[in-house]
């Protein structure tokens, strides 16, 4: 089984890029044609896509620019890289071959988690809201690796989840000897992403293990659970985990507060759905 872990790690070492949804690229193409596109507009579109965000953060944290492990938000990455560099990066991205349900579902789930984390962080008046949203957006990047780079394993995973009624996490551990959280962590480390983003990605299913980024990890965990419970997007299975006690206590949550968050999230997810449909239709027309 050690072999499987070594195989995945070596695949990650060679992973410089991951495909993006065609609709997201189409949206950025139209922004790129508009010479007045500002950093803010670009940041909004880039922040809607976990793959593109990871790629932008990878570039700005690469040793070439000399900011290794420092830049944790998309707007800071855009300021330092410049709109032109990000435009070219997006336009040279490969695209997901098929717009199948699972790809769009995972993209929506990540988008929803980013939105949920933003609401939670804002309501709790936490510092570094943008970092927390970015961490939530990226929390399932390991699943993209499994889907794209371990294609045959991915098919087995889906079959296993259906047959044995397992959760995605259990099925991954069974089949790959590693789960998407750990795989995401490997990718984040190999791409020199900041620790602020790595821990929430690595421990969003096991908040207790977070050491320096406990609050951020707790928010990402809760955001993940709430989006799954809302039924928005599809993260691989329909199983909704319980909010872990350590996260609940660390954030000082209570039922009333949670209801407020859920209420606001429901509203925001309607906007997300519209955005998603727009992205899907742009993808259809441009490809």
């Amino acid at each position, binding site marked *: 089984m050690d072999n499987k872990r070594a195989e995945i790690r070596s695949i990650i070492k060679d992973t410089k890029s991951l495909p993006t949804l065609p609709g997201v690229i189409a949206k950025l193409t139209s922004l790129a044609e508009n010479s007045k596109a500002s950093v803010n507009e670009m940041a909004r579109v880039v922040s809607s896509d976990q793959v593109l965000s990871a790629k932008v953060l990878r570039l700005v944290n690469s040793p070439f620019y000399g*900011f290794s492990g420092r830049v944790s938000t998309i707007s800071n990455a855009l300021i330092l890289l*410049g709109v*032109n560099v990000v435009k070219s990066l997006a336009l040279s991205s490969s695209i997901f071959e098929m717009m199948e349900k699972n790809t769009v579902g995972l993209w929506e789930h990540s988008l929803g988690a980013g939105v949920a984390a933003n609401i939670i962080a804002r309501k709790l008046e936490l510092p*570094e809201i943008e970092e927390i949203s970015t961490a939530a957006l990226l929390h399932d990047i390991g699943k993209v690796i499994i889907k794209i780079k371990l294609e045959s394993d991915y098919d087995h995973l889906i079959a296993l989840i259906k047959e044995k009624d397992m959760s995605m996490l259990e099925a991954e551990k069974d089949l790959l000897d590693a789960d998407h959280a750990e795989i995401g962590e490997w990718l984040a480390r190999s791409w020199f992403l900041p620790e602020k983003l790595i821990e929430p990605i690595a421990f969003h299913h096991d908040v207790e293990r977070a050491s320096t980024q406990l609050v951020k990890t707790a928010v990402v965990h809760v955001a993940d659970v709430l989006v799954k419970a809302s039924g928005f997007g599809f993260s691989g299975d329909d199983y909704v985990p319980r909010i872990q006690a350590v996260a609940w206590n660390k954030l000082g949550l209570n039922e009333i507060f949670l209801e407020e968050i859920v209420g606001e999230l429901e509203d925001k997810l309607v906007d997300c759905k519209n955005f998603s449909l727009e992205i899907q239709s742009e993808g259809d027309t441009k490809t």
Partner: protein
Amino acid sequence: MTQKLRIAVISKDRDFSSQLGLWLEGKGFQPILLHELGSVLGIIYGDPPDVVIADLRHGGSEIQDLIRDFKGDSYFSMLPVIGIFEENADETFTWSDCPLDDFITHPFNHSVFFSRINLSLQRIERVLDNNPLTKLPGNTSIQNAIEKALGRDLAVCYIDINNFKPYNDTYGFSHGDEVLRMVARIMANCVRDAGPGGFSGHVGGDDFVFIVTLEKAESVCQTILDHFRIIVSDLFGEEEKARGSYRASDRQGNEQNIPLLGIAIAVIPMNTPKMTHFGKVAEVSAEMKKFAKKSGESCYVVDRRKT
């Protein structure tokens, strides 16, 4: 106006070098033909040429030693050296043994050789003047750019980081360098986004210069200030940001509050009659920077004085 570019030709082949010399003269260069290898270094050090052409077809190893010698001196390492090889000899040449900048094989197409000479000059100028930390053009390029801007509807803007020294002392050089790289990127990106004709340079330390059209100058300054404010959020912890300062000890070892990093920009319009030469621009910029730094906050100041 400008002096003829001086090209040294090191070759043991007198016929070849005198022919090459005639051709170089015809192309408007001033050739210096060097046959006595013993005196080559003295001549190069004493009166440095602009480009060296080294004929490595005869006595190559001795000439290679010479090239290694003067290229080993940091000042002369900037001197471009083009090697001449026998056809196919370049394939077996050990490039790491001899610091050449370019080569050409004999017999050569003269127009290609001419382009190689010009290209090597351009390349050295580009590489040498760039600041190694930020990769931005340095003082020679800055002076040229400012001289070209005199009298036109352009603004020369000087950026300086407030409280950079204590930051560097407290957080260490590597973090200080990171801040300089960040300012360089922010400035260069904003200047590029403002459209063609702009220029970004790094004077050294925490001093930067950019040139944009007068019309866009204030909006570029504002964007740079905004972007720097956002970036500062990645440089300090939550506590420092909330307090707006950090604790650091001064030279006497006394603890004191140092404000977070900010930047000051002095904007000098070039379309006024008083801007007659580079020295005047530097002088006015020093005065304006004092104004800009007075408040201690990030800001830009435009020189609107008529005289």
